[in-house]
């Protein structure tokens, strides 16, 4: 479904991605783990068109998408829930969701997806007329994910959905990631919480200083010595 080939990204003089190779198949949850500054967010930003790669290719469903504008990429079926959530604090919960559906014009479909999202996140429905800036961190994360779902993506990119949340909420978020996947959306999940991420994912990649250093089934990675030492605290 998605394939990154020899992907390089520069921020000015910083060579953030140095030939990333990664593949996501239809229906999977794939996780990309790595320490701070390894290049996880950069990888997602390149896929969604926020950054233009300096070399390499990104293919989505057989079509090259590297360098396309973000609104074009969304239209093709990839939605990105960014690091730090990025909810619009000046808009209501419902308006945030409407922004997620911006590229669509099928009113009935949007209404249906809105219902689905409220089904996944009942708390958002209770707060639909509230400004998003007044939500708690966990609720904002739910909103960011719900908003991405309103694009009706076939591939969902999630950047650190568990960041800064209490363990109880983290559990809920990961359960919802499973639910979203079960409803048919493929997921590429970036996480620092490698333990949780490898638990929900089918496969995983480990990135270090802009290069993929390990790629395997999630269970294999979770059991491997290297990953346990570096990312699972023993």
């Amino acid at each position: 479904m998605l394939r990154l080939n020899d992907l390089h990204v520069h921020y000015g003089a910083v060579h953030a991605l140095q030939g990333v190779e990664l593949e996501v198949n239809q229906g999977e949850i794939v996780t990309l783990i790595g320490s701070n500054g390894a290049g996880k967010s950069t990888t997602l930003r390149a896929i969604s068109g926020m950054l233009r790669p300096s070399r390499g290719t990104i293919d989505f469903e057989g079509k090259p998408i590297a360098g396309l504008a973000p609104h074009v990429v969304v239209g093709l079926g990839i939605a990105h829930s960014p690091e730090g959530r990025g909810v619009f604090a000046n808009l209501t919960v419902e308006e945030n969701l409407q922004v997620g559906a911006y590229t669509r014009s099928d009113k009935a479909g949007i209404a249906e997806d809105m219902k689905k999202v409220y089904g996944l996140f009942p708390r958002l429905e209770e707060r639909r007329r509230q400004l998003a800036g007044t939500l708690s961190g966990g609720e904002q994360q739910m909103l960011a994910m719900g908003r991405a779902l309103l694009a009706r993506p076939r591939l969902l990119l999630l950047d650190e959905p568990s960041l800064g949340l209490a363990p109880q909420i983290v559990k809920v978020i990961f359960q919802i990631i499973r639910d979203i996947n079960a409803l048919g959306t493929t997921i590429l999940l970036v996480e620092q919480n490698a333990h949780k991420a490898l638990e929900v994912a089918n496969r995983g990649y480990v990135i270090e200083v802009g290069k993929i250093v390990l790629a395997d089934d999630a269970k294999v990675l979770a059991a491997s010595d290297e990953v346990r030492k570096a990312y699972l605290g023993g």
Partner: protein
Amino acid sequence: MTKFLQTLMDGTAVGSLYALIALGYTMVYGILRFINFAHSDVFMLGAWFSYEVAKIMGWTGQDQSHPVWASAFVIVAVMVACGTLGFVIERGAYRPLRSAPRINVLITAIGVSLFLENSGQLPFLLGTQPQRMPTLMPEHALFAVAGVSVRAVDLLVIGISFALMALLEWIIYGTKLGLAMRAVSYDTKVAALMGIPVDRVISMTFVVGSALAAAAGFLYATKYPGINQPAHPTWVLLGLKAFVAAVVGGIGNLRGAMAGGLMIGLVELFGAAYLSPHLRDVYVFTLLILVLLFRPEGLLGKATIEKV
């Protein structure tokens, strides 16, 4: 009582014109975080184009012999013309500087402003002479309240301004474009990520703001038919007061711009009527200083940390 009502009516009329212009400053600031100095020139051109369009249509007399729809025709024409101009200014002058430091954009805006004023004075364009706006709206008194004669033109200036502000409210809070504008003004990057074509939304912001300034230009020329030449300092002063209105209301805040405009108009005219007519500008800028001292975020603005 008569004096009070008269001043109230004039203050509301002038204030609603300030409000229309202030909306353009505040919308552009809300999205791009810079002051579009060329905005007062779009207002000036709104007044001038009104004169030119009326001339082209042959409605030149001061005798009110023109068709009743003449005003409607002229206002739509100048809104389209200035909306297009706003689009071109953003496209040609500001968009190439999208990732440049903000000071470059500010200096460019001053350049655009000077260009419009001075090229407008070229003999084959608008010229260096003031002109008189033909009388398109009925000027006779409709009725009198407590000795104040209310003219159709006064009601129309206020009515059209308020109608346009209501239309803008609807665009911003009731349409998909407005939703996109509010999203872009909060976070451009995430808005783009959600599939909003940010550049097109910014273009539309300039189109809408410029069209409102054009309408204000037409209404101004209708109420005060002596149109000064393009580079005359009154235009800059009027634009500056509208900008003050935007700041007083809370820059970036639409309702703030509307309230600020009305307030500035009322303060100016009540000051002129009851204190001294020579200090009109002083009242406006005193209000600005007071607001900046005691409520720097503006009356309806929220205290925010400047985004970088």
